[in-house]
């Protein structure tokens, strides 16, 4: 075990240039992947902001007793899809209309009777903010006798659905492409390392080292390079993130960075890339000689 670690670390000292090259290759591959990941994360965040606004409004028949409404809104809150239910009385509706619809302020001020109905504003939990769930909940709301009409931005919700599917699909494809490029680059640099040390491997075999013994240091070396590369790529990504956020002059102030679990995943991904690249390269080499 001690020998394994020593040999793996020695390889960095013996071939500093090639080691640096491998680490940099891993770092930049993961960096491009990471930048794309950042874009994806922020798109998701933006979508989530849009989703928050998915809302179903159920208008209540005039003259419905408030107890009925209270009981019903409790029932509605208990729907598995529903996050919260907000009762908007006729007066509140009018106030809102006055403050939000400035153009009609005068019209509303002169009214003798409040023409606006009371309503229940229903917001859905995350994961149910798609057209199908919204439609379902709306149908169920219509079932209540005191509900006059149910409104939601049908087209808008559908567009949101499309947008979500599209970003998901494009994200997956581009992500896979970047990952494939990263794997190839890392495989090539590790192959270079192994070719450089082919002589050493042949001598190890000659003096009776088992194949696993030969693989060991290379695998550890690959994993270490992956770890370093992953870490470096995070640093680069963070630099890129700061640059973008600060150069945008405030328009992108809401830009978010990876959450800790994302960072861990990126580093683990780097380690696995290094390990996998080494395993494939050494395996091929050992079979060929």
């Amino acid at each position, binding site marked *: 075990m001690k020998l394994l670690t020593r040999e793996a670390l020695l390889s960095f000292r013996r071939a500093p240039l090639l080691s640096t090259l491998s680490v940099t290759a891993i770092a930049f591959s993961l960096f491009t992947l990471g930048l794309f990941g950042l874009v994806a994360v922020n798109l998701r965040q933006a979508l989530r902001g849009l989703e928050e606004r998915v809302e179903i409004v159920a208008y209540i028949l005039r003259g419905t007793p408030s107890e009925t409404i209270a009981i019903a809104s409790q029932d509605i809150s208990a729907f598995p899809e529903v996050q919260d239910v907000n009762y908007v009385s006729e007066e509140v509706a009018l106030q809102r209309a006055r403050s939000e619809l400035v153009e009609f302020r005068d019209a509303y001020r002169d009214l003798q009777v409040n023409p606006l109905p009371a309503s229940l504003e229903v917001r859905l939990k995350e994961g149910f903010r798609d057209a199908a769930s919204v439609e379902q909940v709306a149908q169920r709301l219509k079932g209540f006798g005191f509900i006059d009409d149910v409104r939601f931005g049908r087209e808008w919700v559908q567009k949101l659905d499309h947008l979500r599917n599209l970003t998901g699909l494009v994200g997956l494809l581009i992500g896979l492409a970047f990952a494939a490029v990263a794997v190839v680059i890392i495989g090539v640099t590790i192959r270079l390392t192994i070719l450089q040390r082919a*002589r*050493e491997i042949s001598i190890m075999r000659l*003096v*009776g*080292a088992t194949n696993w013994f030969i693989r060991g240091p290379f695998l550890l070396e690959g994993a270490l390079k992956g770890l370093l590369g992953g870490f470096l790529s995070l640093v680069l990504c963070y630099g890129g993130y700061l640059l973008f956020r600060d150069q945008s002059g405030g328009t992108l102030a809401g830009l978010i960075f990876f959450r800790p679990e994302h960072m861990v995943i990126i580093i683990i991904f780097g380690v696995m890339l290094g390990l996998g690249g080494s395993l494939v390269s050494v395996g091929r080499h050992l079979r060929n000689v």
Partner: protein
Amino acid sequence: MRLRDEREKARPPPARFSLLTSHPYFAHVIRFSNVYKGYPNGALALKDVTFHVSKGEFVFLTGHSGAGKSTIMKLLYAEQRPSSGEVRVSGYNVTALKPDEVAKLRRRLGVVFQDFRLLEDRTAAENIAFALEVTGARSDTIAARVMRVLTQVGLSAKGRAYPRELSGGEQQRVAIARALVNDPAILLADEPTGNLDERATRGVFQLIRDINAGGTVVVMATHDLDLVRQTSYRIVEMRDGSLVYDSAVDEAAAEAQ
């Protein structure tokens, strides 16, 4: 001039341990039985080669380049497998060796080459220690064992030298020390003096003879006929992939007459 003719004139004493060669199967540390080795292009590197080596023997493998000497060596250390026939080395059947067994077999062998095959970025002592480390030797015994073989090859003062700081003869001695450090049953030497001047050749050859005198079987491939003629060791001569002369067999036949 053919070696056979020379031998018949000189009539050297019988090879040592010649009694053992007639003994059963287990007395042989190397058995080559009807070995063929073909290449993918159809050419035959070895044709029906049969010879056995007993404990303690020193065998010269001679012949021109391409005669099959190196192929025999590669079969002996399981770098290649025979196309047909049987190769047994130190109890291992090379024909059907698993990867793990290849490693085990090689720990019982020491192999030395014309080009030394030392790692340039390690000192002489580290090169030797490397052979112990890869076989999982206990780390507290390594330094002493390395010193012992360095002394044995006469380089006890040069353990800290890198290969480039050593002469060809010294590098070959380091390679021999590396081959010896695992106490091999068999030393395989493929043209060990091929890159050395005459003086270094004599020294390295004497070292290999001493190793054989200690009981290690030596198989040495060479086309240096001067070396072969100096001694009365067994000679196996190859030509175009066939074994054309084996002094042990010929002498046994001569004695039988």
